[in-house]
């Protein structure tokens, strides 16, 4: 903090870098959140496909019992 008080230009640079670092971190956390949602959605779609196949098989079983 001493150098920050004595050198205005350096202070400006440090604050600028702090801002860039924070901006990047918030950009990354938003992206990771978005990516997680995307992956979950994909998995749900795949699971739905599996469910549809199961339903068809159950109907066939009912016919055999009659």
């Amino acid at each position, binding site marked *: 903090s001493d150098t920050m008080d004595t050198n205005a230009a350096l202070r400006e640079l440090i604050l600028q870098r702090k801002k860039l*670092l924070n901006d*990047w971190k918030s950009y990354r956390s938003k*992206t990771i959140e978005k990516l997680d949602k995307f992956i979950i959605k994909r998995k749900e779609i795949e699971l739905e496909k599996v469910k549809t196949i199961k339903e068809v098989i159950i109907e066939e079983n009912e016919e055999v019992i009659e």
Partner: protein
Amino acid sequence: MSSNKSMRPILLTGHERPLTQVKYNREGDLIFSVAKDQHVCVWYSSNGERLGTYDGHKGTVWSVDVSLETEFVVTASADFSGILWNAENGKILYTWNFNSPAKRCELSPDNKFLFFLTDQAMGQVGTVKIFQLNTSDLSKQSDEPVLEILNKGDASIKPTVAAWSYGGKYIITGHADGSITKYDATTGEELNRVKAFKETVTDIQTSSDKTYFVASSKDQTSRLYDIDTFELLKEYLSDAPVNSACITPVKDFVLLGGGQDAKNVTTTAGGEGRFDCKIFHKIFEDQIGRIKGHFGPINCLSTHPDGHSFVSGGEDGFMRLHHLPKSYLDFQYEVEKTAEALQHQNNENPDALKVDA
């Protein structure tokens, strides 16, 4: 001088002509390389020893990619073909034949698809051809692409490079006029187009999670873009044409490689070719280091998936493998150190936050 010693690169000699692309496998134990000498080589990344070659192409091999489990390798060549190889024994599993040189190939993130970028030459239109991979029998592939993305203009705007996005959702292409484009990888619809550079785009490489990418250009710059928004995130200024750029995992760095074209070196002030690899801070955009060694332009760069080494391929026919020293991995700006220290404090002592609140 132990740090200097550990920084000493390993020279990978085996190619006889300029390198065109280098790539690590996902595990990072192997490096695949292609060159204008028609050979595909595979090397141990730990010591630079050559493990083998894949022979079969009859022209410059422009591009290479390797599957997630290193079961198969795919290459694109100026001999108008793309080849699928068995990674372990080097046998050709399948050959795709095109009507013009294949400039780039890449497997989709899930390895269910792959694309070949075929050149706008010999009266053909520059096209990204997406194929579905038959993974149950790799030797039986379809010649029919599931999707073709055609260049809509003349050769001055033809695609030069391409890459997959996260989830295989988009295809990003770089063009001869310096523009970059995003296409929907299932419909081929053009979603974004930006005139990013003044000259041709030379390389596109994505981040590990494939949500953003770095593109490089002959106009001596490199730029970082978000894939979803296509927003310009960062810019890196070099002093020579940039032929390749990549994002390092773990550290927030970007590597740039290039140099003056051989024909222009004599006209450059001082005769310097600027064939060094430049390390930029990804977030602050400053050049923080450079690594000399090649005596021709660097054509291609690739980083180890854990970020502890990188490899460059040069116009001089050599590959240089750099294992990065601890000083490189420890390097941090003061603001980064402070931010990290604060985070540690908050994580280790949750009560400290409560007091403040």
